[in-house]
């Protein structure tokens, strides 16, 4: 009798665990669906369609990515030229920017997914007042292990002036900016841009670091 009731409790416990797992998965799917419904793309898909939104026009698309040399969180100098021959995503973000922090874990995952193709991400903290410690803390909390660089006030201008964050530049192996996006997009859009960047500029080279 006692054995039967213990068995009964175990069965109920397992059933509850299974239900909780399914419920959690469903909640996450719904949250992701809701986020997708609300996403806004601030830059039109084709250049020249940004009527009245000049400050958000992808003016760097098709240009050579300007080189920069910035310090990382360890104080070591890092240049874009160090990544010559590799597809690179340059992402400008800030500690006070909520949408930026949503993208960062996606970036980390996609960076690992496409590492074999030489793909790298550089996170440029456009955050003069926050201080290195706050920047490092946010990066760590977001699970980011790709290089975080501290901006110098000049790199923003070199990339057309940053009127909005997050702002991302997808640079192919030849150093051409193949895509520029502003604002939070979906993970699928980001991945499509990464694939486009990897495919552009010839995929035979694997050089770089």
């Amino acid at each position: 009798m006692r054995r039967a009731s213990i068995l009964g409790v175990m069965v109920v416990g397992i059933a509850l665990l299974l239900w909780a797992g399914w419920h959690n998965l469903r909640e996450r799917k719904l949250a992701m669906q809701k986020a997708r419904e609300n996403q806004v793309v601030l830059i039109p898909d084709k250049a020249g369609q940004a009527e009245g939104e000049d400050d958000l026009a992808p003016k760097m698309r098709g240009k050579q990515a300007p080189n920069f040399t910035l310090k990382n969180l360890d104080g070591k100098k890092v240049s874009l030229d160090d990544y010559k021959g590799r597809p690179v995503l340059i992402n400008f973000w800030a500690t006070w920017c909520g949408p930026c922090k949503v993208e960062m874990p996606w970036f980390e995952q996609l960076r690992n997914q496409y590492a074999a193709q030489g793909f790298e991400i550089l996170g440029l903290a456009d955050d003069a007042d926050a201080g290195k410690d706050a920047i490092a803390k946010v990066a760590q909390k977001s699970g980011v292990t790709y290089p975080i660089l501290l901006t110098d006030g000049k790199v923003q201008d070199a990339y057309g002036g940053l009127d909005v964050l997050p702002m991302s530049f997808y640079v192919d192996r030849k150093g051409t900016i193949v895509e520029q996006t502003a604002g939070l997009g979906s993970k699928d859009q980001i991945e499509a841009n990464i694939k486009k960047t990897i495919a552009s500029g010839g995929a035979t080279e694997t050089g770089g670091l």
Partner: protein
Amino acid sequence: MPGPKPKQYVTYQSDQHDLEAGKREVVELHFRVAEGYHVNSHTPKSELLIPTALHLDSSTDVKALPAEYPAGTLYNFSFNPSEKLDVYTGEFTVRLPVVAQAGAHALTGSLHYQACDKAACYPPRSLPVQIAVTAK
């Protein structure tokens, strides 16, 4: 070379304030956040967020006491429902206690704020503020 004037997401409605000289009086400063945007309140819920704050130049004619800011409203980005923000949207009023000497004066300063919309954020801005005061 000075760059183009940065776009503002908050506007200030400049009013004339008639006050009694030498007496503590409160002037109301009316601001409006552009539609579709929000700015952090004076007391955002995270130390990383940039609070809305009024910075005034010192004046011997008009002594400004610490400003009183309205409470914000709770807001969250749809993609992050768990993180509550404390923000101003639409119109908000900052109450500024002052003691003015007799005469017509202009108190100058700026409102520092940082705006976002539902998918992006904009670098911090300073909105010039001029408060016209006539004390008799």
